[in-house]
């Protein structure tokens, strides 16, 4: 009796342990509830700009609007003029280079290559007016374009190829009176179309993010929390948190999920343990370019073909440009599974004029640093954009061609379709040497994927990484990943140990069987 009680007590203990560890508390973490509460409150603006007389005057130029803004916001200009949205560069310390100024002004990308010599066209996405290659725009605060970010009427638009000036047929009074905090439309008009079209660059930022559903982005979904860009990209004095590593080098002013969700957001300890080495995005963004395709490959070497002396455009099955005479051939993909890399928050960039060390392999234009043993590094999802772009095989530097000009004959590739003159003019603008020889080189850019976050139900499953075949992390081999990795020696040895044991047993049992038969037979005979 006593024994039974003891055994029952022991069983009871085991059952309690089992239930305790298996049961998932189905109350959502309080941080999430608090966040939902916080972001469901709609903030009312403290000022109605429609009542200001100064915004009712007749505006003859966009600069007059800026002047009107500055009559009240009279200490704001220097904030904007210190921002990277205005300067197109920021101060960065890069190991091996020292302090540099890095940005669109001097970096080379593998889309439209670079801004130098093409300012008038590129400035459509500059928060200022009147940009040209002389750079005078940067000193006059009246050239600040307040409206591109603060227009809440959704009617403001910049003119193409006018150095950043708006279309002149706009109702500036309506726009100026509507101003408020930037909305998704303000940010998206540049950030969704970078690289010359929708979703060309990022893959996770595109026009579907203007009014996304929860399926596209769980935070910004209009059927969900409906967050604005600035809810996460918090801003103090026009300095906006968060940046993309196509143009950043230092582990500073980054935006991350943890600032709202903490670094232990799961109820499951094993999942929380992952956050030390795995970024939230890695599991919570299973794929990007969910609504529209993104450009994965850009081959400049095929650009310049003409039909009857005229440039032409070809489309792929999804209706995206597959070939453009002015730009070359493209490959687009939709619903893309990200690549994964270690990233510690620092990057190094190819800058205009840098010597290319090895022209036999792809040149990485923005190398993201990190490894498993790096304390700061986490696995992040990235879009790898590949391209083939012109370089000078003698000087071993990438060519910054002149692409844009208003008229033919100025050497611009988009007008004259001549690599030779476009390279000569472009390198002259960039004050770089040019040997006269042009070759094409494979280049890669790494774009961290941070948006298009899935709901927790649609996150990446454990066994998409922890598996032997087709693991999402198949390419990252500087650490042991349970479920994916094993010791071939132990596995083969173990297999043979078990095979030999079974064979031994089988033979032994067979002998026993016949021996016992024989013994019985003998007994009968006797």
């Amino acid at each position, binding site marked *: 009796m006593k*024994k039974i009680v003891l055994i029952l007590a022991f069983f009871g203990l085991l059952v309690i342990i089992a239930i305790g560890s298996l049961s998932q508390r189905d109350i959502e973490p309080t941080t999430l509830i608090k966040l939902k509460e916080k972001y469901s409150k709609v903030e009312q603006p403290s000022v109605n700009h429609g009542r200001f007389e100064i915004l009712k005057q007749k505006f003859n130029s966009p600069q007059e609007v800026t002047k009107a803004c500055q009559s009240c916001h009279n200490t704001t200009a220097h904030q904007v003029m210190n921002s990277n949205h205005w300067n197109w560069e920021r101060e960065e310390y890069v190991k091996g280079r020292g302090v540099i100024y890095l940005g669109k002004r001097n970096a080379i990308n593998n889309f439209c290559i670079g801004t130098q010599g093409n300012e008038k066209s590129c400035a459509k996405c500059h928060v200022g007016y009147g940009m040209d290659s002389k750079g005078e725009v940067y000193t006059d605060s009246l050239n600040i374009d307040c409206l591109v970010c603060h227009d809440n009427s959704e009617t403001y638009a910049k003119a193409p190829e006018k150095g950043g000036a708006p279309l002149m047929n706009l109702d500036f009074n309506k726009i100026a009176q509507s101003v408020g905090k930037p909305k998704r439309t303000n940010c998206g008009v540049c950030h969704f179309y970078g690289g010359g079209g929708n979703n060309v660059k990022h893959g996770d930022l595109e026009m579907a993010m203007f009014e996304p559903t929860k399926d596209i982005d769980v935070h910004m979904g209009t059927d969900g929390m409906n967050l604005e860009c600035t809810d996460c990209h918090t801003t103090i004095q026009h300095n906006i948190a968060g940046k993309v590593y196509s143009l950043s080098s230092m582990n500073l002013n980054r935006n991350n999920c943890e600032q709202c969700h903490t670094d232990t957001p799961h109820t499951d300890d094993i999942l929380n343990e992952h956050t030390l080495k795995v970024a939230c995005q890695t599991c919570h963004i299973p794929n990007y370019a969910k609504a529209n395709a993104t450009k994965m490959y850009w081959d400049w070497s095929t650009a310049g073909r003409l039909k009857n002396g005229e440039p032409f455009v070809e489309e792929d099955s999804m209706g995206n440009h597959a070939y453009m005479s002015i730009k070359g051939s493209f490959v687009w993909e939709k619903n893309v599974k990200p690549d994964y890399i270690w990233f510690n928050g620092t990057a190094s960039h190819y800058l205009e004029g840098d010597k290319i060390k090895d022209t036999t392999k792809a040149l990485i234009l923005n190398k993201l640093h990190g490894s498993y043993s790096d304390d700061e590094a986490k696995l992040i999802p990235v879009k790898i954009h590949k391209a083939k772009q012109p370089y000078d095989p003698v000087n071993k530097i990438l060519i910054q061609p002149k692409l844009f000009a208003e008229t033919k004959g100025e050497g611009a590739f988009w007008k004259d379709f001549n690599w030779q003159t476009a390279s000569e003019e472009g390198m002259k603008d960039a004050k770089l040497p040019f040997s006269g020889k042009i070759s094409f080189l494979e280049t890669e850019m790494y774009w961290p994927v941070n948006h298009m976050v899935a709901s927790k139900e649609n996150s990446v499953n454990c066994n998409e990484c922890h*598996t032997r075949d087709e693991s999402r992390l198949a390419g990252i081999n500087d650490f042991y990943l349970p479920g994916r990795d094993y010791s071939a020696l132990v596995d083969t040895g*173990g297999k043979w*140990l*078990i095979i030999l*044991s079974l064979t031994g047993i089988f033979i032994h049992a067979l002998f026993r069987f016949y021996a016992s038969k024989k013994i019985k037979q003998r007994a009968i005979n006797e």
Partner: protein
Amino acid sequence: MSKKQFYIYKGFERFWHWMQAILIFFLAFTGFEIHGTYSFFGFRDAVRYHNVAAYMFIGLIVFAIFWHLTTGEYKQYIPTLVNIKAQLNYYIFGIFRNAPHPTKKTVLSKLNPLQKLTYFGLKILVIPLSLTSGLLYIFYRYPSRHGIKAINIETLEVIAIVHTVAAVLLVAFIITHLYLITTGETLTSNLKAMLTGYEELEDMHHTEQKEKK
């Protein structure tokens, strides 16, 4: 020689044995799924179940150690070289000739020398190896920024491989063990004994008395 039913496996001993059997089976099944050998529960659930079973196993081991120490039953497992050759000879030759078991099973000495050696090895080597590597696997700390460097383990690889080795050895043991339980007086006498606690053994005391007379 007369035979008599002896109570050789106590209640706790049998409970411990079968609980251990179930847990080791379950741990091996979920463990090799985590290892990537096959897929059944799905990686996440396999890990959860494996961890729960691991804690239950540790609990069981604590109770078993207590029982063995307090009852003195641990002495059964102290290895001996006496009769080891005879026992080997029995499995290789004697068993086919219907020869008698060279080691007499008694309540005070119920393990033959090969069993003593194997179980001792399991208790001293394989289970502790499995347990330690398993606990390190659970409490493995990734190289981390603000932690104490000295307790960082730079890689999981060694831990995982040792844990796999221990698991393979256990599986090999179970397979052999399952076969060897059929080598008792009859095919099922050992199994029955472990289920009921009773086994028919030679009544040494009785025999001796008879001989005296």
